[in-house]
């Protein structure tokens, strides 16, 4: 039993935190949000330089052979900084490629993914399908050596910057994955900014013609890899949310210790103290579950057990994110409502984290089915 980060893990986490503290402060992030692309190229390049995009990829593909546990502390730092660059989505696309792609496919795409020059996004969700991972509205048909892709995807985070999309589609054999050039004829983006400041897009595919080499792995066999990748993504999202929740608690403590009413810091009032204690206990419980989810994803083994543990963590993180973000705003009073304070942005981040990759109800249902 050892819950401590290794020296290497700790050093990386410290470095990410330090760099984000220096170059991704509140005002700097606001500038990114207001920019045309909503994306900081320099931050992206820095994250790539630090090896975050390569960390969980196999050494054979130029990665470091790490896993979710290695990414946990850096993701916490990103959550604390409210990073809007789609690092998580990029990493997850890389995982799908590494786990399903052929040697030539991996050689063509992963070096650029690792050094950050090729942006990738995973197009999975579909209109009206909530969190379902098996595609319905996107289909691919094979005819005379090419695949023809049709359909639509929703809320593809990172699509606007992406050079390459990994797209799940229904083929006659079942669920399949395709590599799609984001600029290919017939690919149409309807971009948006998410409630927490990320750039996303709904994506239309109209008779997009793909070469035979666009198919990742075996046709019809992609669902287990997608489920694994989304469990991995969920574990990373949990870590991201832990960082944001820690910030929300710290900011609330700082604020209530300095804000005076009735002649005293409001932190001296027991009614507020007990609420902050509840935030702390909730955070520690959530952190325990996030750690377990990352460890379980890394352990591999029975996919049902992996999914059950990840669902358990996501339920806890969803509940905790809601409680802690709401309490943080409430205890900041009116100031917590304004865009001027980071806590309101953290609120948005945590609100979206609670729902992304499945809300508590979604995971309660899945947990029960897997128990």
């Amino acid at each position: 039993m050892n819950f401590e980060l290794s020296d290497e893990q700790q050093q990386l986490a410290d470095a990410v935190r330090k760099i984000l503290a220096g170059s991704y402060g509140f005002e700097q992030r606001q500038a990114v949000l207001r920019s045309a692309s909503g994306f900081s190229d320099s931050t992206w390049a820095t994250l790539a330089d630090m090896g975050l995009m390569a960390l969980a990829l196999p050494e054979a593909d130029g990665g470091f052979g790490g896993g979710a546990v290695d990414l946990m502390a850096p993701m916490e730092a990103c959550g604390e900084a409210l990073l809007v660059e789609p690092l998580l989505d990029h990493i997850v696309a890389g995982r799908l490629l590494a786990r399903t792609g052929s040697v030539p496919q991996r050689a063509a795409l992963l070096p650029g993914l690792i050094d950050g020059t090729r942006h990738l996004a995973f197009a999975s969700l579909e209109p009206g399908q909530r969190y379902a991972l098996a595609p319905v509205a996107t289909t691919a048909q094979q005819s005379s050596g090419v695949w023809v892709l049709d359909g639509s995807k929703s809320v593809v985070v990172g699509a606007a910057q992406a050079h390459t999309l990994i797209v799940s589609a229904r083929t006659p054999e079942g669920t399949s994955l395709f590599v799609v050039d984001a600029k290919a004829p017939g690919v149409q983006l309807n971009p948006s900014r998410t409630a927490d400041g990320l750039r996303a897009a709904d994506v239309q595919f109209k008779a997009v013609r793909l070469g035979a080499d666009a198919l990742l792995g075996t046709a019809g066999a992609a669902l287990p890899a997608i489920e694994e990748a989304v469990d991995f993504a969920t574990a990373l999202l949990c870590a991201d949310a832990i960082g944001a929740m820690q910030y929300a608690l710290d900011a609330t403590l700082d604020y209530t210790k300095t804000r005076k009413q009735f002649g005293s810091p409001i932190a001296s009032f027991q009614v507020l103290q007990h609420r902050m204690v509840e935030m702390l206990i909730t955070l520690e419980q959530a952190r325990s579950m996030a750690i377990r989810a990352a460890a379980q994803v890394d352990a591999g083994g029975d996919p049902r057990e992996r999914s059950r543990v990840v669902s358990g963590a996501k339920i806890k993180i969803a509940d905790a994110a809601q409680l802690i973000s709401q309490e943080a705003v409430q205890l900041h009073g009116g100031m917590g409502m304004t865009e001027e304070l980071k806590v309101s942005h953290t609120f948005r981040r945590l609100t979206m984290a609670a729902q992304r990759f499945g809300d508590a109800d979604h995971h309660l249902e899945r947990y029960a089915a897997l128990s």
Partner: protein
Amino acid sequence: MDLNYSADETAFRDEVRGWLEANIPTDIRDKVVNYHGLSKEDYGRWHRVLADKGWSVPHWPVEWGGTGWDITRRYIYDEQFGLAGAPMLPPFGPSMCASVLLKFGTPQQKERFLPRIRTGQDFWVQGYSEPGAGSDLAALKTRAVRSSTSSGDVYRVTGQKIWTTLGHYGDWIFCLVRTDSSVEKRQEGISFLLIDMKSPGITVRPLILMDGGHEVNEVFFDDVAVPVENLVFEENKGWTVAKYLLGHERMGSGSVGASRRELAALKDLATRELKNGQPLINDARFRDKLTRVEIELDALELTSMRFLDKMRRTGQPPGADVSMLKIRGTEVQQAITELMMQAVGPMAAPFQAVDGGQIDHVTSRLAPRYFNYRKASIYAGSNEIQRNIIAKMTLGL
């Protein structure tokens, strides 16, 4: 990062589990898992079995009969008790009084009391709370006045203690008493006394709780003579002793093992109970509540292990971390008792058989169990007091 016990620790866990399974008297285990209280004889018998094995006081120094286990093994040991349905020995003697004696006792006091605590010859109880001194313990008023008699100096003790758990089994009671009322600071002027409950002038009166059970008592002291050699540490320095004890709470205060066993029982129950012809456990509304409790318990187990790991690394006492475990642990215990009772629906109502009637022995215990466990968030420092401790120690408020 490694979330699992080491091979040695796992082997130790299996050893404890195997030994407990083979050595808990069946009738005692049956009482525990069916939510019946234990008699003084039950506790004594179990205590002797543990003492014969050398496991009645694992946390004591080896020279007094401890095992020399590290904190992880002690935690594992506690958890296995809960899982196995083995009753923990009441903490008042082996944990509380003994910790105080080991730290503050004279050589004579240690010699006199510790061996008898180890073997279970004396049943100790705790005399802290008073009607006017609950969470605010320093408000206590039970008075001890030093006076001379032909057979030596004594304290004459007069006053009342309350919530004395198993006071009706007590051979000895350790008490906080006021030896000086003139002090400005209430924490001064308190002393720690060991009192033989056979002394003339002591009356024990049961307080029957809403589950119908006799667990706690009021203890009245009417001019009880206590030899001065039964004072622990210095006169008027009892608060130091009490504070020391508070800093030595167990890491097992989340009661994870016992809650695991109860949760398994709840799942069994909810699998047998039918709703519209289907097992209740498949009912989404019930299932969601059960899952959330299970997840909270999973998290609590990991949080306990994280704190244990931190303690092992830093060598620091757990401090307010134990308060967190106590709050969540008791909340989980209470949630399980509530769901147990709800699981049997209307069958939770029959409580006692009367006039030769027959009732189900399992379902009839579930409502009283729920009633009884409301105590968990009140005793051993109410959860509100625990929040005060966390606010002060961890959050710096």
